[in-house]
């Protein structure tokens, strides 16, 4: 149980650094500019942009830009004060102050959270001040203020962005060997968050408040995972020991190959020993993924059955037709001479698995699992659509999905499980291995499952789907 006595050192560390920051004009000056001048500039630029667009027949209203401006005004001070978080550990290392600090009886988590607190406090204070100042500007003009609910969402998003970026920066700081290296890595934090904000801006304009709360939740989960990753791989020894940041491709290749091939001397031995040991490690993730798949399919089924019928009843037929065409186009199935060929199905499925992997690799599995969940939701939705047109979903499932699904679903489950495992090992403390080694070994596990099982299963599934499933489906429909 953590007591107040355990938490106090976090505040001591944060307070000391805050005192340092308030004595450094190089930190205070840009923050003051971003807090006081940027909201004014944003207000002027937004007004000018609206006037410009409207001059050419646009129908933009400045009020609509206020929530977007709040999001941006909150974001900028965070990016500037990220410098503080980025050099939290590595800066102290370069200045030689880290060793006396590490030699004290502070626990690792106390050190880490102390740095995290100070890293988040300054940007958040600056963001909130800037937003407050902007709201004062807005209130003095003939503009509509965002309602309390939207304002709460925007503030929650700003806090989540700050925690996400700062936790990423602190994690980078513990793993970098110099401030320069940490600053170079900052783009890996700023760019994804900037893209995220673009997506959130769409949601703000779209005005879907439920989805915006989901975005708050997703960003918060990511932030929590980043904190966990940083803490899991925080080692006093690395902070003192490592001096060089060399990209050692040979070492990376060797580590990957050793983990991929293992002790196997033949493909059969590889399947029997190495792949089997990886599958044993994937037992729990596999169970979770299957549970997630069921959940996704069930939610997809019931959501579609409830809302699709309502939507179809309320929407004019032309609009439905347009939307179906758009969906077909988005899914690459709108070509006039289109046919579900083996290569198309196989490549489509491999691409889906790769997208799932890429999403998972950059988000500690979160995005990967989200894609997986959406895929399973689509299966449920398809069954619901069948149900809505008066056919038996079970019969359609048995005839249209099961023949190739026997191969495709296990492949998807295995791919999902290996992505979930990748995220899980990254956020699990490992005393014996560096973060790089852990990542490469988990990557090798993913590759083993892909090469050994997922790709062969997807190939078989594609053959069945291209040649057998249509026949069974036609026979059933007749």
């Amino acid at each position: 149980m953590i007591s107040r006595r355990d938490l106090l050192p976090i505040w001591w560390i944060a307070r000391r650094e805050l005192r340092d920051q308030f004595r450094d004009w190089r930190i205070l000056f840009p923050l003051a500019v971003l807090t006081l001048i940027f909201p004014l500039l944003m207000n002027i630029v937004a007004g000018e942009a609206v006037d410009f667009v409207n001059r050419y027949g646009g129908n933009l209203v400045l009020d609509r830009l206020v929530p977007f401006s709040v999001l941006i005004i909150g974001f900028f001070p965070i990016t500037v004060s990220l410098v503080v978080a980025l050099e939290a550990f590595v800066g102290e290392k370069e200045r030689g102050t880290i060793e006396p600090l590490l030699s004290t009886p502070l626990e690792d988590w106390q050190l880490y959270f102390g740095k995290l607190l100070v890293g988040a406090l300054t940007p958040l204070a600056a963001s909130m001040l800037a937003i407050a100042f902007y709201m004062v500007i807005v209130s003095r003009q003939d503009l509509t203020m965002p309602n309390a609910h939207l304002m709460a969402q925007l503030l929650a998003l700003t806090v989540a962005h700050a925690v996400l970026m700062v936790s990423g920066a602190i994690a980078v700081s513990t793993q970098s060997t110099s401030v320069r290296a940490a600053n170079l890595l900052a783009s890996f934090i700023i760019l994804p968050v900037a893209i995220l904000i673009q997506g959130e801006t769409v949601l703000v304009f779209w005005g879907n408040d439920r989805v915006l709360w989901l975005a708050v939740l997703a960003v918060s989960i990511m932030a929590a995972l980043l904190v966990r990753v940083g803490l899991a791989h925080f080692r006093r020894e690395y902070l003192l020991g490592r001096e060089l940041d060399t990209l050692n491709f040979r070492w990376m290749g060797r580590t990957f190959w050793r983990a991929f091939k293992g002790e196997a001397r033949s493909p059969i031995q590889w399947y029997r020993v190495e792949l089997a040991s990886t599958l044993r490690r994937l037992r729990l993730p596999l169970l979770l993924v299957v549970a997630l798949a069921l959940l996704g399919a069930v939610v997809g089924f019931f959501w579609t059955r409830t809302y699709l019928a309502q939507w179809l009843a309320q929407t004019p037929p032309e609009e439905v037709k347009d939307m179906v065409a758009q969906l077909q186009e988005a899914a690459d199935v709108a070509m006039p001479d289109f046919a579900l060929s083996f290569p198309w199905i196989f490549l489509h499925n491999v691409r889906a698995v790769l997208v799932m992997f890429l999403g998972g690799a950059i988000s500690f599995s979160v995005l990967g699992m989200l894609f997986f969940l959406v895929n399973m939701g689509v299966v449920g939705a398809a069954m619901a659509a069948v149900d809505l047109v008066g056919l038996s979903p079970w019969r359609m499932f048995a005839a249209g999905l099961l023949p190739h699904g026997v191969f495709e679903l296990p492949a998807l489950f295995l791919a999902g499980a290996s992505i979930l495992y990748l995220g899980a090992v990254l956020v699990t403390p490992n005393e014996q291995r560096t973060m790089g080694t852990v990542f490469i070994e988990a990557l090798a596990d993913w590759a083993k499952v892909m090469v050994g099982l997922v790709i062969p299963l997807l190939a078989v599934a594609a053959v069945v789907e291209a040649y057998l499933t249509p026949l069974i489906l036609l026979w059933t429909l007749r």
Partner: protein
Amino acid sequence: MIETEDLSKRFDDFWAVDGVSLRVREGQVLALLGQNGAGKTTTVRMLTALLTPTRGRATVAGYDVVSQPNQVRAVVGVLTEQHGLYVRMTAEEYLDFFGQVYRLDPSRRRRRSRELLEYFGLEEVARQRIGEYSKGMRQKLALARALIHEPPVLLLDEPTSAMDPESARLVRDQIAKLRSARRAIIICTHNLSEAEALADIIAIIYRGRILVTGTLDELRRRVLGAPEYEALLSAPWRLDGFPLPQGVALSSQEGTRLRFRVKDPAKANPALLQALLAHGAPVVTFREVTRSLEQVYLAVMAQVRKRL
């Protein structure tokens, strides 16, 4: 107080410390001597539980460096190679921060801070930013930080480097006081006269291995051989037919200076002096020839280089 057994640390393929076994009791000072990169700092970092040993074990004040790292850090005062001071803070704030981290109550923090600042002559600049301090002042403040929680074990890396002679003397006196207060101290230094003046035990480390360890007398005997004694005569004297007592050998004769190597001075010296006087040698003085730590160190390093 400090015990290591086969303590070793490997970085990739390089053994920075290889099989170091040391023992420092309460009230003892051990000087760890060696070139740059010999493994002194790595040894100290393992004893502060900052680096995990690859092999072997170490206990500090009864705590194991691997299984009880925080207990170890709580009982150790460390002076690191770099001062590691926060330059935007004042000395008062700095010591208060570390006092807090070492869990001293506010009144004890203030008392210790005042005592140390006064002792090291920093009380007048206690409210100035550390960034404005000279190198020597910084070193003194760093030492004050290491002592703030009155630790039973001190690990000091170059404690008097960058200090003027007066300040260096202050630090040496402080170390001597701490030894009297039954602290166990390890100092890593290149300053051999300082080590000679302070250390009860000396260990010479080379490429991660301890080459020799022992008291200065033991090292002198082991490395440079039996002690030498010099008889200064008032006039040249012929040694022909002079019967040297058992355990005594003539090592050199230059004019009126005779040097003897004596295995057991307590037994042999009275006999030697008696024999010299009995045979009419005009002895003015009889004294032991001084053999510095520097001679021991250089001899050890020369032996190592010869072996390589």
